[in-house]
């Protein structure tokens, strides 16, 4: 799992691994992350998700060794 920017600061971590019950989806992984880092709750409504470096929907399936990233609203440029 990868966290960035505001989300990484709030969780106090940028990278960790998660054991998920299969079949896992982006949504179930997100719920497992929130259980571990409840401080992220206020951020959730604004998050997007990237699975293996592609934007992904909540119902997308996660396979072992996938990389899921939580993407707060971007502000590059």
């Amino acid at each position, binding site marked *: 799992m*990868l966290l*960035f*920017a*505001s989300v990484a*600061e709030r969780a106090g971590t940028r990278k960790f691994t998660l054991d998920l019950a299969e079949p896992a989806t982006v949504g179930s992984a997100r719920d497992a992350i929130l259980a571990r880092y409840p401080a992220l709750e206020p951020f959730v409504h*604004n998050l997007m998700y*990237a699975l293996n*470096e*592609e934007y992904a929907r909540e119902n997308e399936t996660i396979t072992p060794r996938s990389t899921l*990233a939580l*993407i*707060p*609203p*971007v*502000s*590059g*440029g």
Partner: protein
Amino acid sequence: MLIRVTPDILVPAEAIASVASSRAGAINIFLGVVRDNNLGRSVNYLDYEAYPTMAEKVMREIAEESVVRFGFEDVAVLHRTGRLEIGETSLLIAVSSGHRAESFEGGHWLVNEIKKRVPVWKKEVWADGESWVEGPESLGMQAPSHG
């Protein structure tokens, strides 16, 4: 097609040279620059963070889409990360095209899409606090830092 996320200074001449083409009659270059103020508040510096591998992937997708949409000869997109002082360049794009109209129109489209889709974040640092800017044009969270 020059695509790069880097902590190093962005050099316009490199991007211009990379899009040069004998079929190009127009080259448009855009620099996103750190301004000393935002929404009425004085800014000391910005700190940019990226998801670098994904950011380059999305920048390349947008650049390739712009070639199809606007018929560009070539495109360069570079984004800098880390601490940027006032006046430094955070985003550098260059496009080459046959004629000028599409170089302006497509260059603008490219910058808009980059700001919407590329996983890069900026934190504004003021004299009395700091805030992650959330969303391409938003106010940020406006919370003073506790550091």
